[in-house]
């Protein structure tokens, strides 16, 4: 069994704990006694909020909508190049202010930073926000 120290993904308190991992599966949680905030305690979400990661409904491959309205699985390359060319086309026709991105308070700092860079530097749009207001 491996123990991986991490930060809780549920609320802004930022408790830390160890995820106990066996065969790429979470088998338990161990609190961290000397963490300055959680001090060995966790709430029910920290203790038990992890089984979703193995849920059968997880998305497994990129999906693209077909002409009949249904989704079909596609490769990453297909998904990337469709999105890329469509974004370029829209920006060329309607300007970069016709596109926007919404980043996420659930993602990491590094991902949020990249999203901002993607918006302002790659798409050259000012339209970037996230759901903190909600």
């Amino acid at each position: 069994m491996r123990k991986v120290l991490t930060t809780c993904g549920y609320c802004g308190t930022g408790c830390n704990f160890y995820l106990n991992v066996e065969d790429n599966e979470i088998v338990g949680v161990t609190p961290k006694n000397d963490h300055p905030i959680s001090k060995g305690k966790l709430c029910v979400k920290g203790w038990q909020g992890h089984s979703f990661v193995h849920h059968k409904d997880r998305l497994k491959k990129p999906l693209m909508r077909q002409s009949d309205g249904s989704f079909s699985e596609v490769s990453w390359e297909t998904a990337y190049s469709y999105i890329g060319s469509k974004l370029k086309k829209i920006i060329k026709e309607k300007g970069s202010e016709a596109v926007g991105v919404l980043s996420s308070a659930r993602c990491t700092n590094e991902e949020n930073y990249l999203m901002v860079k993607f918006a302002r530097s790659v798409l050259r749009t000012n339209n970037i926000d996230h759901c903190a207001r909600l």
Partner: protein
Amino acid sequence: MTNSINELEDSEVIFVIGSNTTEQHPIIGMRIMNAVKKKGAKLIVADPRKIPLAEYATVYTPIKPGTNLAFINGILNVIISENLMNQEFIKSSTEGFEELRASIGKYMPEAVTSITGVPEDTIREIARLYAKAKTASIVYAMGITQHVTGTKNVGALANLALLTGQVGREATGVNPLRGQNNVQGACDMGALPDVLPGYQDLDSQAAQEKFAKLWGEGFAWGEGKSLGEMIEGAYNGEMKALFIMAENPMLSDPNLEHVKKALENLELLVVQDIFLSETAKLAHVVLPGASFMEKDGTFTNTERRVQRVRKALVPMAESKADWEILCGLMKTMGYSAEYSSPAEIMEEIRALVPSYGGITYQRLEKEGLQWPCPDINHPGTKFLHKGGFVRGLGRFTVNEYVESTQQPSEEYPFILTTGRIHHHYHTGTMTRRAWALDREHPEGYMEICPQDAKKLGLRQEGMVKVSSEIGEISIKVKITDKITPGVVFIPFHFGEAAVNKLIGQHHDPVVQIPEYKVCAVKLEGVR
């Protein structure tokens, strides 16, 4: 937060308003209970619902939803009229006091009582407790910000701390508790339409030059559309494409039908998420992201503490960490994004964001660091504004109370307020699929007090139809004496009884936070 979570235990007085702390931030709630039980702190709680913390309060007062601003201004009025201010602090560290004084005169307790339902003497008692304490902390959450007057509410709380000098010292301060785990970090990183990463001004020449070195000349440095404006733009056809990472506005936005039409109007909607969320169902392309257990990175908690997130699992099937997806897309579009790991992205962040300047993965290995942490030897910052404010003086703001747009009427006689419950998290995409959590609260409900339930003939566990000006839902009844008469409460985690179908398009004019906390509704029992 201006101060740190642990400092709460050393506060003489803790004033909790608009935060159901034990439910939304359980570990911080516990810390507040400890402060009361073990250290004799005095707790003040103002909330329309008799929340669990109320049991520990020296003063608990119910308050009519939507009237926080009148209430806080009432407290300011008492502090000024009874001369409980910290004159020395006002003189040395603030500006704008005379304007504040002039604006606050009319909020006499007698007047405020009839607006808020808080008794005159209670307003006075709260003012005295808070102002006279050696150290007093204010703790608030979305009960303060999710109103048409959200920005003013926050301003009024800041006035309270400035007026009494309860800021810039240990165990004091104005402490917003952030809801989602990394709201603080998303804001720090500049995922906002009106600032660059690190809250640097868009039109600062120096910042532009610095960013151009890493982002290329000609990056977009104007002010963009907010989330609400983007949805509006999609609705009226101005916006053609939206790229949404790990958010589910189809459940968390007010007025769902409107949002649905807006998103369906787009030429391109890309949604990156771990499940096929309500929003993803409308997308043209859905990209499978990874959960926080399947990636490396950092989160910044509500007290500005940057901490490591570590990859415990290989991502499910072909899903990828969101940063990898963004890199892949950037490369496909012909931009370089050669980051081998999030640690490398952090190196770029620290080069651009001064308050993260001293934050490296190596330093974070041992323990988190609280920003501002400007250089590699800086120990991080426990509380802000020590020895003065960054921008010179602390500015008082004038915040006039305006009535909520949602008042009870003959047709819609009840006030609905919304929020979270302990076992679920935001729109429930994750928690509703964690069986141990879902078992406890599998479905939505509406809280109502026994008197009102009786009047309407509603039974415990029976169904009720709740309608507002814009929509209706049916939901189970939960009768409880913890809620004020005339007010009902519905948590917003449940797709099949999506309370946001009821909530209109009113929002705070400055930051456009939707008015989630107040909505006039009509109730009818369903057989």
